[in-house]
């Protein structure tokens, strides 16, 4: 079962990604994929989730659920989970998912694994007991220095939050509609202890996940001149600008541009890393790019270990040459 997160009645990308992954896991196990959504006006769009592999969606409608709030969402989710007893319960690792999932898991006294980057099905043996077809929850820990596989075979359900962008959203061509089942919950006035005074959400201007080409600036390309060249090359190639974390922390670029463990996970056709050393937390977000070009003045920089093409040199010079070469070919 997947928690379908919605903001203003638009399902979160990560929820659709999770449905797609859940579909694959369910097909292998002969299970069904269910969704659960809380909000107001869900009827209008829940049936469309069939396109992402959702067989059935449970809807809890109430005006007071239009925007996320910890206590009522916990109560609603716990009720649906207890009633329908899914084997696995997945949430996006968003500020919403990471707020409500622990509270739900604590109520159910079930295991919850945070911020997974992969989900698999497998077996586990422990003290003469063996468990078949359980959820293997894979996540980085210790600042990304280790990858842990976590299991919670005694929990029903096993709960996990999954990072946005690590699973692929797959739309089927002839989508079956998803059956929507209205549920109800005995709300009491005390179930809404938080007053939502204001919600401010800027429209996302940059969505790195969908870009085919990303030209990314690290600390070695954070001068105004370098950033101008990075932007110029990105525009020329019809792509977008990415960056390492210190470039964002330093205020040179907005957080939307950050690639890596605490930024966006990207899989473009081409990733050009300019003046990026290639620390583990940065690689976590870009190592699956189809082609990686590394530009760095230090021939020993770790980024060269994962690059398909390496250019040792000054970023500005290399960027200027790339821009010139590409323009000549147009």
């Amino acid at each position, binding site marked *: 079962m997947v928690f379908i997160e919605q903001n203003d009645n638009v399902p979160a990308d990560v929820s659709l990604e999770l449905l797609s992954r859940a579909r694959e896991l369910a097909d292998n196990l002969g299970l069904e994929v269910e969704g659960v959504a809380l909000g107001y006006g869900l009827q209008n769009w829940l049936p469309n989730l069939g396109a992402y592999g959702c067989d059935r969606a449970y809807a809890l409608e109430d005006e007071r659920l239009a925007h996320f709030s*910890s*206590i009522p969402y916990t109560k609603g989710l716990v009720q649906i989970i207890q009633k329908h007893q899914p084997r696995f319960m997945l949430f996006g690792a*968003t*500020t919403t998912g*990471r*707020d409500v*999932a*622990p*509270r739900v*898991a*604590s109520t159910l*006294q*079930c*295991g*919850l694994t*945070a*911020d997974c980057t992969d989900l698999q099905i497998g077996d*586990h043996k422990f003290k003469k007991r063996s468990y078949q077809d359980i959820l293997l929850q894979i996540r*980085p*820990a*210790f600042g*990304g*220095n*280790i*990858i*842990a*596989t*976590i*299991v919670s075979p005694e929990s029903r359900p096993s709960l996990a939050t999954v990072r946005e962008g690590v699973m692929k959203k797959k739309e089927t061509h002839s989508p079956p509609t998803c059956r929507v089942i209205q549920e109800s919950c005995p709300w009491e006035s005390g179930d809404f*202890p*938080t007053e*939502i005074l*204001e*919600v401010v*959400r800027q*429209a*996302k201007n940059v969505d790195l996940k969908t870009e085919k*080409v990303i030209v990314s600036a690290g600390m070695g390309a954070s001068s105004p001149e370098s950033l101008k060249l990075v932007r110029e090359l990105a525009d020329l190639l019809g792509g977008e600008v990415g960056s390492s974390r210190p470039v964002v922390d330093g205020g040179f670029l907005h957080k*939307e541009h950050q690639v890596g463990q605490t930024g966006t996970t990207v899989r473009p*056709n*081409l990733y050009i890393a300019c003046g990026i050393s290639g620390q583990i937390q940065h*690689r976590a977000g870009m190592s699956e790019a*189809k*082609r990686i*070009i*590394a530009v760095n003045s230090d021939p020993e920089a770790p980024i*060269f*270990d*994962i*690059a398909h*093409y*390496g*250019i*040792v*040199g000054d970023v500005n*010079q*290399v960027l200027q*040459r790339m821009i010139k*070469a590409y323009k000549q*070919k147009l």
Partner: protein
Amino acid sequence: MSLNMLVLVKQVPDTQNVTGEAMRPDGTVNRDALPAIFNPEDLNALEEALKIKDRLGGVVTAMSMGPPKAADVVKECLYRGADKGILVSDRGFAGSDTLATSYALTCAITRLSGFDLVFCGRQAIDGDTAQVGPQVAEKLGVNQLTCVADILDISRDRIVVKRQIENGYEKLAASLPVLLTVTSEANEPRSANAKRVMGFKRIVCCEDAEGTDCWPCEPIEHIKQWDIQAIAADAERCGFSGSATWVKKIDNVVLTARETKGIENSEPGISGLINELMEEHII
């Protein structure tokens, strides 16, 4: 008005500054070699509590669960302005996941004579789970406000906060008691106060079987140390036996090298690369 505030703090390995000594020759990290530090966002949580105390008065109690060495972070809280310190420590807590940890902390908190606000850091840098705060709130049966980037208003019975969300924020109001998880954006934590460091330098932990919250107010003589019995916890729900998630395996991230094609930094070299990418329809 005097608020009763509790801050939950954790000692963590410093995963953000993996230095040479902690790196094994095979490129993996030796976690035991990492220095132990105060979890960064827990310092932001402490700071928010201290700011409220400065403004409105109140009592700030710092609580940590961990091995005896975790007394260091409780001491640091006293240095910075906390009034009391509690260390929840027992071998029986080893192997706790967030479910078992939040259970033990809740048992310990229940031994205190009530609270108006509980502060936690948003997440700890060793596990990055951000789960213990909300799970303690659930077990205490109180409301929660997570990812708090600013406290906009506070009175005896109501708090207004700015909560960080993706691409924006929410302004939320809640009545007390409530549990908050605080992000690094909330403040710049103060440093230790020299006078308090002198005063608390030699403070030690003292086992306290009763597990009750009655100190002669100031000055406190020791950090209270509570074990499983002192917090009246069910040993089955603590440590590994109380944990629902188990680690199946740990893979050290070994950075494997890829075959890299060196491109000469010259106009012909780069022009050739652009050609290749265009021919393969990469660009």
